[in-house]
């Protein structure tokens, strides 16, 4: 499995938040990807966006609730079409299956389309260890493969790099002159990888969807590398998580409407390719062998927990990254594993272990934007809260279990919030307590911008380290509202 650095989230985010190049790229994520998404949804006439989201969600709920049935149906239909399905319980098994297919096929060169699951499994080093050369062919993946890095975004894996950095990389690793335009870089990748596509004995792709009814693997791409990987080499291996199955071919339509719009603001991507078994006897071209590797690797744990099952509905569009105030500050690498952003903060702890990724459920302001943009309406904030609760209730002190002070505070807060009278009393009390402190010449309360500067209360230190705790205003909203009401009543009377 891919290296897990999720335990370093806070340290890594403190570093990446200072990176000026990353900051520029992340600003563009908001204006570019999310702006395009909004425009594409606006363009849907009549506006059935929400209907589509509901339909997609219904399909996912139904399929995941009966996943064993649909996986069985899928397997039988892939076999009927002449393909072979392999089942892998974990990353080691999945990698061994692919390595086995490569070995028995005498494979020397593999071209690979974009696959987040293969990143999760860390497949490439395993293939390389048996003497196979692996070429990532999605431009972004090719760049990070050359750089020896991991993806920083679900859809645009190399968005953290500038074109100057890519030019330098192409010069260092490929011996090219320093290219100036992005067009030239794309052209260079086309020329180099074109040759590899035609030499490769094996193409590997991921899957966006698997259709149980017909035994079909569906990939959604823009560059054409996915078509190359599934058309040119003699063997095609599709590798994917078990949650990707949908029942009928006709269920695909709604997902083809939701995914490209949510990911890149496209009405549809340049290519949607559907593979059903190997090439038939009379076909002109296409692979002679088709293998589908279906991977669990921790997903059945998500399936088993009704609170977390909906994380498996994710179609990996990246919309929740593009809107997330945390992702847009720290970028993808800080999350420490393959899946970044809000959905990554839910999925990673479940796949690598909550203890390893105990800070990720806290990598959120719980603003709810991710849930609003999700094309399958996944309630990410609810799951983050659930994970936080699990951590707080954990008997293991190393998993962010709540301290006695935090427990006491939470209990006190709950008690206060349960009664309007108590809340208002506490406000008045706190207001009179902060007054003498404000009058001190070097009061810690006056250092920040109109708030408590750097008060380090033991149980609030994480909050007050990075932001001000605002002063209580002279009047609470409740008091203002009461006054408004009585004034209105008075006006009406007179």
């Amino acid at each position, binding site marked *: 499995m891919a290296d897990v650095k999720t335990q370093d989230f806070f340290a890594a985010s403190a570093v990446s938040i200072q990176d000026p190049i990353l900051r520029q790229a992340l600003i563009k*994520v908001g204006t570019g*990807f999310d702006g395009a998404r909004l425009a594409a949804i606006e363009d849907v006439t009549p506006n059935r966006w929400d209907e589509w989201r509901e339909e997609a969600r219904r399909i996912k709920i*139904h399929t995941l609730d009966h*996943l*064993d*049935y649909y*996986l069985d149906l899928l*397997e039988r239909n892939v076999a009927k079409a002449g393909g072979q*399905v392999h*089942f*892998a*319980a974990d990353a080691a098994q999945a990698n061994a*299956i692919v390595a086995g297919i490569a070995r028995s096929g005498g494979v020397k060169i593999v071209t690979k389309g974009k696959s987040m699951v293969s990143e999760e499994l860390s497949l490439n080093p395993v293939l390389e260890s048996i003497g196979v050369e692996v070429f990532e*062919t*999605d*431009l*972004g993946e090719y*760049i990070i493969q050359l750089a020896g890095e991991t993806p920083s975004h679900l859809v*645009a*894996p190399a968005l953290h790099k500038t074109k100057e950095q890519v030019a330098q990389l192409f010069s260092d690793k490929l011996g090219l002159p320093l290219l100036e335009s*992005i*067009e030239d870089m*794309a052209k260079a990748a*086309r020329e180099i990888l*074109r040759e590899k596509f*035609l030499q490769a004995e094996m193409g590997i792709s991921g899957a966006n969807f698997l259709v149980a*009814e017909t035994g079909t693997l569906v990939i959604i791409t823009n*560059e*054409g*590398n996915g*078509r*190359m990987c*599934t*058309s040119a080499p003699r063997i095609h291996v599709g590798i994917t998580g*078990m949650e990707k199955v949908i*029942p*009928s*071919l*006709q*269920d*695909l*339509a709604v997902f083809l409407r939701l995914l490209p719009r949510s990911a890149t603001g496209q*009405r*549809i991507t*340049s*290519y*949607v*390719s*559907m*593979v*059903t*078994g190997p*090439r*038939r006897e*009379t076909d*002109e*071209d296409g692979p002679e062998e088709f293998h589908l*590797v279906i991977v669990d690797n921790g997903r059945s*744990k998500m399936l*088993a927990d009704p609170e977390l099952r909906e994380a498996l509905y994710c179609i990996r569009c990246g919309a929740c990254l593009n809107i997330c105030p945390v992702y847009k500050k720290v970028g993808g690498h800080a999350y420490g594993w393959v899946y970044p952003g809000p959905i990554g903060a839910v999925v990673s702890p479940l796949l690598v272990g909550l203890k390893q990724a105990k800070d990720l459920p806290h990598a959120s302001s719980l603003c709810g934007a991710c849930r609003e943009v999700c094309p399958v309406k996944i309630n990410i904030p609810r799951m983050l809260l659930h994970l936080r609760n699990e951590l707080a209730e954990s008997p293991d002190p190393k998993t962010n279990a709540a301290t006695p002070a935090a427990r006491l505070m939470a209990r006190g807060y709950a008690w206060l919030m349960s009664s309007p009278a108590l809340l208002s009393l506490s406000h008045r009390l706190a207001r009179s307590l902060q007054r003498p402190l404000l009058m001190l010449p070097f009061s810690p309360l006056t250092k920040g911008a109109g708030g408590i500067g750097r008060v380090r209360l033991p149980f609030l230190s994480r909050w007050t380290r990075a932001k001000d705790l605002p002063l209580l205003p002279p009047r609470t909203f409740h008091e203002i509202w009461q006054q408004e009401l009585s004034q209105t009543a008075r006006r009406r009377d007179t």
Partner: protein
Amino acid sequence: MPSSAGIGKEEFLASVRRALGRSPGPPAAAYPRLEETTQDLEDQARELRLRLETQGPRLMDQLATVAELQGWKVHRAEDPEDAMAAVLAVADSVGARTAVRTGQDVFYEVPLDAGAMNWGLAVFTATHDEGLDRQAVRDRIIEAEIGITGADYAVAETGSVVVVPRQGLGRLVSLVPPVHVAVVRPQDVVETLDDVFLLRRLEYHRNGGEMGSYLNFITGPSRTADIEQTLVVGVHGPKEAHMVLLG
């Protein structure tokens, strides 16, 4: 046949069932789409065809508009002669001398080969037979400057051309050459994605569970925005995509 490196299907499904707390068997409430018979699909397809007939010209216009938005260069052609001229004009614009085409029916209507020959464009039909093996066909496709195909369907909703590779229709013709020209006839045009999937399902049912090994929706040129989120056209697929709309 279970793979030696993985686990068997039954073992895998059993662990999924354990996670779900479910016993083997279909969903208690059947999934409506999977219950449909061939006759049901025939009925739906008949309704679909009636709908398409009444909407014909409007759909052609919608297809042309959406296709332009999606990056196709659209050429409207009055008749087959016109369509041929449009294809040759594309060849001329890129200075091409060699082209490959599929063996789809549209080329009976549009007599491309003869017309192209007079023009100085060599059009090769990418089909293997006794005389020519697959590797030789592949080499010709790799050398070609233009790939010309028909459309098994064209989708007005998305501006897509759909090809279903089979004998006479190779996967690489619309992918490998730097320019792709798709010739679309009125009878190829459907309204929505749902229409395509309904018709493919009907095909699958009619043929006893066979609808071919591959299907591609092609929508404009190949593109990427992987460097600095800046759009660049033409990566691994064609840099130019032309749609010739007949009728």
